[in-house]
């Protein structure tokens, strides 16, 4: 019989919400020999080689972990690991340590520690919390190099060692955290870390309860001790008494029930208060986000941006590579439509910029569909990949920056060519709808003509506002003129929605304003029935929709159309929107 200790509370920093109740798995920092030894000058190169080998080993380990998180529905883990990989290539860390080894003829461990002392001093002088805390990322990378230098590399992953427990750790790295899975481990508490640490971001993405910065956690918590971890409160209770345990079991159940109901509510189709169906779609940046879109109750993918495939690389993505990415999204959507937007960047962003003359005015230059039509080989590769992905579920092709019917016809001809080239190889591509982005004022003005030949419209309001009002949002001298509620915008939206209604075409709005509840009534009143937004905004917008009725919305739109200035429209529209009361039974959505 072990003697029962009395209940203690350890206070840390709230990391990731949720309650975990379980036994502790404790991992304290490993002591690496405090080497102070110097080395013979003739051994310096060999020592640099040993250091470089440890750096290379670290790189391989992080790459393996990065590949293992590629299937997650959130991009953060991969992006954080990318940052750590860049640190492993940084001259300030690697080059500096190597030259210290040579200059002072000391062991790699000592040289690395000396470099880290300098790095820490430099970061400490930063006043901004977020940027100062980035030293933790460098520390964690250096720690991994040290472990590799000492030959102390973990066999099983932490996730496997700690399965079924609450992890108590000195300093959990984002890489360690990335491999944790909800259900496999219950939660974690660390001695170190702050509110903005990457480990915290990772834990939130993975929905694992976490408390960080609980300085004495590994010292005060024994292996196997019973612990309650409250991530939202930033508190860990060790050896809780029976009544506390009972209290937290109840709180845990409430938390989980609320989470379940929120997700379940989001799965229901969206209707207005008077029963009009509205489709809410998700905008996608990365294929991995498709699962999040499904979890948030998206009716489909309103716009899958394909630029990620082409950015930050020296070569062009192959057809198979693109097909794999599109297929991931189409399959994840399980029969719901996936709208894939063809490449929407200019040649200046692709490959070696030296190959293309720089343009005086890139926003009005050779980009998007114009660029694709100029580069038929590149375009055909993408179209073939999309058509191949269409065998796995409904796919729509969305064409960006169309200014008139001509470009739509040329694009359709390209799609037909791609279809025939696939047919020649024995693959019969299923039918796909082809729609156009309405983001050029000229296209809005000929919406009636486009509606005859396009299967659907997608209102790209971000660019439509910039082009219509002749302002660059990035230019802060004129950014104040960026105004979704400018009377000109309302007229353009009405023109497009009316033309589409006459021809019986769907219109989806995929600009930022689609995610803002204040614009919802006026947009519904103008006739919009499909909106695309970031997946996480969907549950909240569904809740708003259920409070709004179409009749009132039509009146709001009619009145808004009579107002003279952007400010008048905005003031009126937002106060009108505020009069609708969304149900508050699920607070905190």
């Amino acid at each position, binding site marked *: 019989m072990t003697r029962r200790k009395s209940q203690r509370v350890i206070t840390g920093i709230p990391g990731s919400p949720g309650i975990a109740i379980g036994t502790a798995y404790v991992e304290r920092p490993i002591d690496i020999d405090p080497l102070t030894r110097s080395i013979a000058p003739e051994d310096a190169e060999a020592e640099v080689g040993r250091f470089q080998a440890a750096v290379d080993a670290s790189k391989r380990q992080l790459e393996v972990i990065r590949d293992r998180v590629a299937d997650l529905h959130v991009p953060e883990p991969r992006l954080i690991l*990318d940052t750590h990989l860049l640190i492993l290539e940084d001259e*300030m860390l690697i080059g500096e340590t190597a030259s210290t080894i040579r200059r002072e003829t000391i062991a790699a461990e000592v040289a690395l520690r000396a470099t880290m002392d300098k790095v820490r001093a430099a970061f400490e002088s930063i006043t901004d919390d977020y940027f100062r805390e980035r030293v933790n990322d460098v520390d964690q990378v250096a720690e991994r190099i040290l472990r590799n230098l000492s030959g102390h590399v973990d066999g099983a992953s932490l996730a496997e060692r700690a399965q079924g427990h609450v992890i108590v750790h000195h300093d959990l790295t984002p890489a360690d955290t990335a491999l944790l899975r909800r259900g496999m481990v219950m939660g974690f508490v660390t001695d170190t870390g702050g509110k903005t640490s990457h480990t915290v971001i990772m834990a939130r993405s993975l929905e694992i309860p976490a408390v960080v910065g609980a300085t004495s956690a590994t010292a005060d918590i024994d292996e196997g001790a019973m612990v309650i971890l409250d991530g939202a409160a930033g508190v860990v209770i060790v050896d809780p008494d029976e009544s506390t345990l009972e209290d937290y079991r109840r709180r845990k159940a409430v938390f989980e029930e609320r989470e379940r109901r929120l997700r379940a509510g989001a799965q229901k189709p969206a209707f207005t208060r008077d029963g009009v169906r509205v489709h809410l779609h998700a905008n996608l940046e990365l294929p991995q986000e498709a699962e999040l879109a499904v979890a948030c109750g998206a009716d489909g993918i309103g716009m899958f941006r394909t630029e990620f495939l082409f950015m930050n690389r020296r070569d062009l993505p192959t057809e198979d590579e693109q097909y794999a990415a599109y297929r991931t999204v189409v399959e994840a959507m399980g029969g719901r439509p996936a709208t894939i937007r063809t490449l929407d960047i200019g040649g200046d962003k692709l490959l070696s910029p030296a190959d293309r003359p720089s343009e005086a005015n890139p926003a009005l230059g050779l980009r998007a569909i114009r660029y694709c039509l100029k580069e038929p080989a590149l375009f055909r590769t993408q179209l073939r990949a999309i058509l191949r992905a269409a065998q796995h579920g409904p796919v729509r092709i969305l064409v960006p920056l169309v200014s008139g019917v001509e470009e739509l016809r040329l694009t359709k001809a390209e799609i037909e060519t791609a279809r025939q080239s696939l047919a020649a190889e024995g693959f019969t591509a299923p039918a796909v709808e082809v729609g156009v982005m309405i983001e050029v004022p000229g296209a809005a003005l000929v919406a009636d003509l486009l509606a005859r030949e396009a299967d659907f419209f997608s209102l790209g309001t971000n660019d439509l506002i910039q082009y219509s009002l002749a302002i660059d949002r*990035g230019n802060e001298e004129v950014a104040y003129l960026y105004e979704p509620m400018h009377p000109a915008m309302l007229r353009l939206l009405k023109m497009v929605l009316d033309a589409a209604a006459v021809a019986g075409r769907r219109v989806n709005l995929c600009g930022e304003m689609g995610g803002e509840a204040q614009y919802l009534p006026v947009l519904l009143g103008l006739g919009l029935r499909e909106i695309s937004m970031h997946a996480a905004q969907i549950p909240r917008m569904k809740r708003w929709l259920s409070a709004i009725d179409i009749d009132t919305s039509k009146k709001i739109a009619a009145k808004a159309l009579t107002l003279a200035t952007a400010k008048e429209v905005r003031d009126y529209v937002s106060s009108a929107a505020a009069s609708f009361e969304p149900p508050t039974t699920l607070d905190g959505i």
Partner: protein
Amino acid sequence: MPHVERTLKITNKLGLHARAAAKLVQMAARFKSELKIARIDSRQGAGGEAPGNKSSGAQATDVNAKSIMGVLMLAAGMGTTVRLQAEGDDAEEAIAALAGLIEGKFGEE
């Protein structure tokens, strides 16, 4: 060797945080030119708070734009003015590409 310089403002909400810094560094790595970035805040320009500043108008500590640590150490939040400098055969293209990233808010907004 062509030398190109450009001053511009960081306008994305999070500034040169880790994700944006990573994009910047990855882009910088694609060019042969030596690429430097410095913050030239009004407060630095006025008071010369950083030690070792010269008295010229552009008082700033340059960091290597190919170093993620250097770029993070700039602690360049939204609204910070930075100066990009490139030296090398592809200096023009490099500055255009980096400026494009910053002006395009790193594709975040």
